[in-house]
């Protein structure tokens, strides 16, 4: 059952990602990216990361991608824009380099380089306490400093975005 779900989600997300890269219309690209993100959220649930799955949908699909669609629609980008390409011969080398990169990553995965120590948070333990509770505990104890720094980062980003997008202050 889980295996089937994994293969379906993997196939859909890869197909959507391919369309995202090769689609002419930016609106469709954005919708395909949303599709990929939703599939990845399902995979997170398969990996027993319910909190991350929910945040993936809320933050990525619900906020970031709406922003993207918003900008695409406001700028009203037409498809003609893309046709004038200054470097038309870049496509084939780019795809070739992509395949090389993929092979390199696969070689790393296949080699035994990616080994790690088993941690203490087994599935049974996580389910007994609750995924969200554990993440919350860790965020406010061991990872408090990074957590606070991200809040500053978001604050700075909000101010920066307003500064950049506003015509006159």
């Amino acid at each position, binding site marked *: 059952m889980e295996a089937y779900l994994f293969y379906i989600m993997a196939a859909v997300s890869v197909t959507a990602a391919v369309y995202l890269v090769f689609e002419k219309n930016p*609106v469709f690209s954005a919708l395909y990216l949303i599709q990929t993100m939703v599939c990845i*959220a399902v995979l997170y649930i398969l990996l027993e990361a*319910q909190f991350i799955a*929910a945040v993936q949908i*809320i933050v990525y*699909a619900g906020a970031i991608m709406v922003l993207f669609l*918003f900008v695409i629609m406001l700028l009203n980008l037409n498809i003609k824009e893309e046709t004038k390409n200054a470097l038309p011969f870049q496509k084939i080398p780019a795809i070739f380099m992509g395949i090389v990169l993929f092979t390199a990553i696969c070689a790393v995965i296949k080699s035994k380089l990616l080994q790690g120590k088993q941690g203490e948070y087994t599935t049974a333990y996580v389910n007994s306490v609750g995924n*969200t509770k554990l993440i919350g505990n860790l965020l406010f104890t061991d990872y408090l400093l990074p957590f606070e720094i991200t809040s500053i980062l978001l604050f700075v980003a909000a101010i920066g975005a307003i500064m950049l997008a506003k015509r006159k202050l």
Partner: protein
Amino acid sequence: MNKDLLVYIVVASIKIFLVFSAVQIMIISMIWLERKIMAHMQVRLGPMRVGPHGLLQPIADGIKLLFKEDIIPQKANKLLFLLAPVMTLVPALITFAVIPFGDKVKILGHSVNLVITDINVGFLYIFAVSSLGIYGIVMAGWASNNKYSLLGGIRSSAQMISYELPLGLSLIGVVMLTSSLSLVDVVNAQAKLWNIIIQPIGFFVYATSAIAEVNRCPFDLPEAESELVAGYHTEYSSMKFAMFFMAEYANMITVSAIAVTFFLGGWHGPFLPPVVWFMLKLSACLFFFIWIRSTYPRLRYDQLMHFSWKFLLPLSLFNILITGLIMVLKG
């Protein structure tokens, strides 16, 4: 396949069927009730021709919409144009999966929890699903290839993003008090005292932003007839329009059900059975929506945005601060 799994699947299917039929029936009756109640509030009679007191009006409306010509604009983006109504309706309906509508009951020796599924991230699930509802409206606005539709779609996405923040933050106070994200736990914690008494600010913020979130009057700018023709569904006709219409009512029922679960004690109440209490509270919330609609004029767009960012958002943050402070002081 083992027996437990089979029982689980059968029980879940029955629950899903019952909940969805109930929601559909409520949508149909809401359409009639809204017209009647608004009419009487404005000293009119409302629909009277079809059936006694216009009781068959929703069915007549449904038949009319079904037989209307289904128009797709020539320059419209066909795929997205067809997909948009579905994308609006589905998120509105699947939120009901986590809303508890009754206590545990014993049926044929099986203890059945009257909620479709009790997941431990129910609160996050609601927000994940409701944040997807924007796409239907944005897609409808863009795919129609009509400037009024596009303006309606953009307005609505801006409005829904702005009001989603206070909507989510207003419920955080309740989550802090119950210290659980499961909606069943939230309801169980309100057996003695409803959260509306402990969290009055939270309820106020929730009620206001919920009305904005479902694009109802006085926050119905996305479909403001007088300025945008009908907003994002200008180009829609026939059953596709009916689906937008149904989605609006389904959204209203969803946010009302969340309000009942988080603030009004869920299915708790004396004398009457739990399911009846739940329905009564839900109806009261829906009546409130209609009441507001027939009372207030529409806000201007800048007023709407200022209200969300400069008033509701700080207020909901203040509510969280106060709740945390009191919880720490009480230990």
